[in-house]
């Protein structure tokens, strides 16, 4: 195996959403727990006890399995994103003491760059795993490799193969051992290889990771492109994917959600759009950006009995702005144009794009840009009030007050770590 000096670790929380719920509920320690998607649609996370009961529950609609799950004593929760985001930050903050550079890859995964940290990685991995458990209560697995792709594969082994006890180091094993491990894994376990690629690879006789590793990079590039070629090189210990410490600047800010119940009046839809504009504009301002264009879309569910309807429109603004009221006005104008009566809408969203940094915006001839001092002050005040109290303390009246279209989260746990009213209670 060709070695480079780089060493990456991938730390991945086990059943993250379900584990977050368990941290605050000692009564659920050994109970099967599942977490449902937006609007309590389907199962998106299962605790290890729930997985043991039935692996196939993942992604199944909740209403289909509710009866059976309840009979088996499964505890279910709506997604509590406030809690998960907070626990995710605790997790990545805890990791920072172990590596000079950390890339937060997703809500439950972080890469560590351990290049130059000369340690017995199996031991180090155990130390990382134990510290995260002690500090945050979250169980994790750690995988080490000379490339990110190998670290990710190592993490998969650490998670799925009991012998590793949650830590797998591929940097210190012989080629023979590596062959044994890789031959036992289907190619779909490799980072970036989905089920469609897997099928095509299998047809070419590449039916395990070892064979993919030994495939000719040139042939892979000709057949599948440069991305998979890099993956093959990464499997050989040649690092092509670098650690991305800072997330690349967002090219667009999106706010979209499925409705709790179908929406069919223009009034309700208009409120929902105002909500999304407010939400997206607030996030955009946090990044100090201005939108040059706005895109609005509304649709019904492709799974509904009625015919599928989807409409959207993209409008370039005369001049970039970060003013919620102006963006809302534009969005409402688009909505009136694309809204069709008699449809039970299931989803709507707003995307702000063509983002430019502060100062990057140009003035237009027609006075559309209201990025004058007054507007900036108003938006600042709005954001400060909503930061200090809670989201939506101050909002446009067009958002409405009742919000029947809001996401359904009937089984959400308290916001244990982010709301004073929701702190866990101790006797």
């Amino acid at each position, binding site marked *: 195996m060709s070695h480079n000096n780089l060493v990456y670790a991938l730390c991945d929380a086990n059943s993250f959403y379900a584990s977050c719920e368990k941290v605050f509920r*000692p*009564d659920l*320690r050994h109970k099967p727990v599942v977490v449902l998607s937006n609007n309590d649609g389907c199962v998106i996370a299962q605790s290890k006890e729930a997985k043991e009961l039935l692996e196939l529950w993942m992604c199944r609609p909740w209403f289909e399995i509710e009866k059976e799950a309840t009979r088996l004593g499964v505890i279910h929760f709506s997604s509590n994103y406030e809690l998960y985001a907070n626990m995710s*930050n*605790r*997790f990545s*903050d*805890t990791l920072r003491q172990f590596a000079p550079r950390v890339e937060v890859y997703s809500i439950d995964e972080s890469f560590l760059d351990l290049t130059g940290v000369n340690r017995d990685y199996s031991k180090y991995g155990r130390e990382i795993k134990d510290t995260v458990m*002690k*500090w*945050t*209560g979250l169980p994790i697995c750690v995988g080490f490799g000379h490339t990110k792709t190998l670290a990710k594969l190592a993490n998969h082994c650490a998670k799925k193969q009991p012998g590793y006890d949650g830590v797998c180091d591929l940097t210190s094993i012989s080629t023979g051992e590596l062959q044994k491990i890789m031959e036992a894994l289907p190619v779909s376990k490799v980072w970036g290889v989905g089920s469609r690629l897997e099928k095509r690879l299998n047809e070419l006789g590449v039916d395990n990771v070892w064979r993919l590793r030994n495939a000719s990079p040139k042939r892979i590039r000709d057949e599948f492109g440069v991305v998979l070629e890099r993956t093959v090189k990464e499997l050989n210990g040649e690092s092509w994917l670098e650690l991305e410490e800072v997330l690349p600047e967002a090219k667009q800010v999106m706010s979209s959600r499925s409705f709790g119940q179908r929406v069919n009046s223009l009034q309700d839809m208009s409120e929902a759009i105002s909500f999304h504009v407010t939400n997206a504009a607030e996030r955009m301002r946090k990044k100090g950006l201005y939108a040059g264009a706005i895109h609005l879309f509304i649709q019904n569910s492709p799974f509904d009995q009625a015919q599928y309807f989807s409409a959207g429109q993209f409008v370039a603004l005369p001049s970039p702005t970060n003013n919620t009221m102006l963006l809302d006005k534009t969005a409402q104008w688009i909505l009136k144009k694309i809204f069709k009566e008699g449809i039970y809408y299931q989803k709507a969203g707003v995307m702000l794009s063509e983002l430019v940094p502060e100062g990057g915006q140009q003035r237009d001839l027609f006075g559309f840009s209201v990025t004058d001092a007054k507007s900036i002050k108003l938006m600042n005040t709005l954001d400060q009030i909503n*930061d*200090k109290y809670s989201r939506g303390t101050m909002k446009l009246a067009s958002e409405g007050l009742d919000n029947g279209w809001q996401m359904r989260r009937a089984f959400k746990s308290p916001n*244990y*770590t982010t709301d004073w009213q929701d*702190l*866990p*209670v*101790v*006797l």
Partner: protein
Amino acid sequence: MLTMFLPLHRSNCKLLGPVPESTLPLALPQYSSKVRAGQSHFPSPAQDYEQEFLDLNHRFITNPPATFLFVVAGDSMIGAGIYPGSTIIVDRSKKAKSGSIVIVDVEGEWMVKRLKKTGRAFTLLSENPAYPPIELQPDQSLIVFGVVTTVIHEPQ
């Protein structure tokens, strides 16, 4: 800006400094008073001595990712100054020792108790005579959420 003054009885009080209007982030400036007398525009003689803000988080939360807040519902720890309604700061990264006040799992419920270790056995002590000690069997696992580091109580 509001200013905190020394009360008449000096014995139990300590001047911390003016209280800022903004409480986020939680901070008390030490010497940055902006009091202006009459029409004077002379710079404050204290300006050069202006110091950092006093940050309660900094004082009471040493390890943020491992720190959690709980609210107390029971009266079993009143002897330790922990009352119903108190907010307690809990640090998971601290090692629970004999004598530590901890959040512990007692039959599926979080309880705040003083931990006592005798040989290999643990006892959970209350600080209220109405509650007898809970003895754990040597084989019974002790599940501690974290160590209580600070009690916040707002007087009535």
